């Protein structure tokens, strides 16, 4: 690879910018922590040079902005050195959040596909439901989250027919109520994408199906569905990220004690900046992995359907 091709490649550009961002982060942690640290050090009797203060800003235990390596060390300690089943391990909390994310994502995708099929097949449904589906997303669901949590939790554990039928313990009920929020956020991109996808066959192709005397169901399964699969995966990538946001936020207002959202809340009450940042970083990694996983499944499915690998 020649130098000019290296300079023009996307990976190189991203890498350089990430390095610049980390450098800015280090500078920022000097700037933001300087006042606190110099105040703290001035209480000692010994004199401190500016170099001492600078080094301390990067290793202070209660920083305003922790330096990247502090966050990395904390992340390393809380994920890889502790047994994952322990409550002090971030992996344990990540798993709690991930389980409601995945459940919510699956429920949201199924709901989204069902709604999209109904909307495409029934003209009245498209007029009735579509405006409300769009309006549903202008409602700040995260404001509704506490109520949805209380409602589903009571429905699943309280004194009523549904609860007695299901016999759920409180952990499962909490999981489902958190997944409900994730579902609400993740069904929308799937509906919109799938309606577009199921409507994407051309008139010629639909006419061909009619000349074959195909039923509505046959047209759906043999023409509309295969055409919509790329749209499905594109919208599922958005949906899985939205689902993670929903699961994290669902843990905020309920006083949950486990899960990434709960760690954020506890960190914020205790003023533990390093803990907050490592939770955020882990959530970012999780989001990236989830989107990547959908992409891998997409490639497998699309290539089995006979598409040319790109």
């Amino acid at each position: 690879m020649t130098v000019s091709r290296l300079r023009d490649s996307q990976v190189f550009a991203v890498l350089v910018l990430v390095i610049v961002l980390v450098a800015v982060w280090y500078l920022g942690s000097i700037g933001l922590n300087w006042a606190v640290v110099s105040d703290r050090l001035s209480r000692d009797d010994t004199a401190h040079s500016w170099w001492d203060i600078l080094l301390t800003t990067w290793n202070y235990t209660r920083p305003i902005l922790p330096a990247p390596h502090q966050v990395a060390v904390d992340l390393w300690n809380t994920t890889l050195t502790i047994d994952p089943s322990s409550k002090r391990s971030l992996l344990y909390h990540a798993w709690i959040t991930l389980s409601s994310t995945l459940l919510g994502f699956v429920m949201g995708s199924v709901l989204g596909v069902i709604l999209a099929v109904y909307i495409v097949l029934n003209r009245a449904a498209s007029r009735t439901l579509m405006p409300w589906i769009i309006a549903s997303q202008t409602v700040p669901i995260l404001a509704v989250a506490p109520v949805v949590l209380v409602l589903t939790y009571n429905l699943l554990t309280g004194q009523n027919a549904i609860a007695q039928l299901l016999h759920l313990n409180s952990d499962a009920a909490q999981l489902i109520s958190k997944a409900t929020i994730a579902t609400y956020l993740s069904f929308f991109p799937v509906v919109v994408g799938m309606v577009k996808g199921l409507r994407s066959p051309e008139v010629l192709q639909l006419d061909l199906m009619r000349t074959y005397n195909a039923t509505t169901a046959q047209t759906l399964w043999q023409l509309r569905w295969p055409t919509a699969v790329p749209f499905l995966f594109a919208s599922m990538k958005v949906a899985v990220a939205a689902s993670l946001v929903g699961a994290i936020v669902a843990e905020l207002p309920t006083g949950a004690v486990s899960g990434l959202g709960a760690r954020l809340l506890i960190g914020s009450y205790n003023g533990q900046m390093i803990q907050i940042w490592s939770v955020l970083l882990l959530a970012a990694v999780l989001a990236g992995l989830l989107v990547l996983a959908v992409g891998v499944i997409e490639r497998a499915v699309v290539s089995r359907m006979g598409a040319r690998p790109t």
Partner: protein
Amino acid sequence: MSRFERVLAVLAGLSAVLAIVLPLGTKGDTTLPTGASLPALAYPAIVLVLLAVFRLKLPPAISGALAGLGGAVVLLQLDQFDLAGTGYWCLVVTGWLAAWLFVERLSAELARGEFRVPGIGVVVPIMFGLAVLVAWEAGTRGGNVPSVLLPSPSAIWGRIVSNFPMLVADFQQTFIKAVLSGYFIGNAVGLLVAIAIDRSPFLKRGLLPIGSFVSALPLVGIAPIMVMWFGFDWPSKAAVVVIMTFFPMLVNAVAGLNVTVAMERDLMRSYASSYGQTLIKLRLPAAAPYIFNALKINSTLALIGAIVAEFFGTPVVGMGFRISTAVGRMDIDLVWAEIAVSALVGSVFYGVVALIERGVTFWHPSIRGGETV
């Protein structure tokens, strides 16, 4: 009339018969028969007569009138009993089916292009919304659902009226101060940065993947950090909104600035127009649909960000604060009142941005074709 519509009509007839036969509800120890109240008896009878007269093929106007009448009867009957019986639920189902039939019939006629009344398309979704509200009211009050679980719409409305000044104060704190200022700063900075990096292919290559990655992240998580940096009052919420709105705007604006084709740019060059002139007269207008797309996405993100940031600490006013404390006190009526306000604010905010979009990008095919979304 399609087979589906015929099925709906038959079901409506069946549930009308059941509504007449089965008991309406219980008051104290006595079971009320449907005959105890005239409207509860008359409405299913009218439905049956009309279905017979038109041999199931109810015209849209008649089924619409039946749906409206059904909603009124369902609401009026709520005072007649303490706990609803099966007859009442059949009444509700009859009204619901009448509304469904109306929606099906009207959309079929609209698709054939028979009605040319302006604004008629709005009737269908509104009918659905009203039907949901009536069913909610009937279900919660008729079934004696505890208000801790789900309050009725009338109770929520009563709470909005009685707590109006408090709701207005929360609205000012959260929306006027935090959301609007954060929304303007975040979008303006996102747009300016997009214009700035647009001149450098290197920055564009590097920042776009990072930008799209960051906009998929759970950015609301920075809320506790912002609360610690900027304090409990609204600036910390505005800061969260700025960060949440910045990345969608950056990614969309950069994509929008690149939609002009070489021919259009060459034309501008042949006019000897400067970079600024090309930007303002060609590239920004061409990018407008993308910019408005970001503005619409951001209108909901902004409200979410401000409300969630209030969960982490706030002065004793604000929509997120009110919701989290009212949930703690099990004051679910107040929570729903606050949700109703936030839903209204969110929808109006989105609607205003969409209206401005229609005005600014009137030339775009999606607007000219009369299609929204």
